[in-house]
């Protein structure tokens, strides 16, 4: 009885992932694609949590935390790239 509702939730989350993927493909600017990719990573976390309920295991939660941290790091790096043009600034000749 529980697994029916979990499968329904998995189908709804998969539909939302398809919608976000359409925005990644046809987004007009770069920022649209970055926002949609961030939402895709977060939705992937929800998908992995639902699969861990469906398959009744506890070993998928490490992957869930790892995906969250990697999605935030990628989005922050891309935001800094859009802002300044480079991600890690290594000018050694700056005089402070």
């Amino acid at each position, binding site marked *: 009885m*529980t697994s029916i*509702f*979990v499968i*329904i*939730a*998995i189908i*709804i*989350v998969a*539909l*939302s*992932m*398809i*919608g*976000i993927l*359409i*925005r990644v493909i046809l987004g007009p*600017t*770069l*920022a*649209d694609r*970055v*926002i*949609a990719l*961030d*939402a895709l990573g*977060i*939705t992937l*976390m*929800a998908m992995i*949590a*639902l699969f*861990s*309920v469906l398959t009744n295991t*506890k070993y998928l*939660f*490490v992957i*869930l*935390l790892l995906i*969250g*941290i990697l*999605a*935030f790091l990628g*989005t*922050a790096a*891309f*935001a*800094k790239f*859009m*802002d300044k043009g480079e991600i890690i600034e290594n000018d050694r000749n700056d005089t402070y």
Partner: protein
Amino acid sequence: MIETILISISVIMMVIGAFFSLFAALGILRLPDVFSRAHASGKASTLGVMLILTGVLIYFIGKDGHFNVQLLLGIIFIFITGPLAGHLVSRSAYYMGVRPSERTVRDDLKDAK
């Protein structure tokens, strides 16, 4: 008895969170410009995923009596970094030169550079 109540609450939270995620995807698809899409992604998607993860946490408490701290850490991490990522990307998009849509009434950042 208490296990049935906990599992029922967790299943309800999972389904509501999945619908919030679907509404976030609809907002990302249908809203007109970058800033309103960041609005939809930063709030609705974060709340949906937090509801789903809280449902999974309560499910494993009710089923095995197993409290998973990694899942709690994931919920807190999503709560901190979800709106922050939307803020970073929309700020960079404004300074990169992406204009808001024509229906925008007021632009407070017009002469901030």
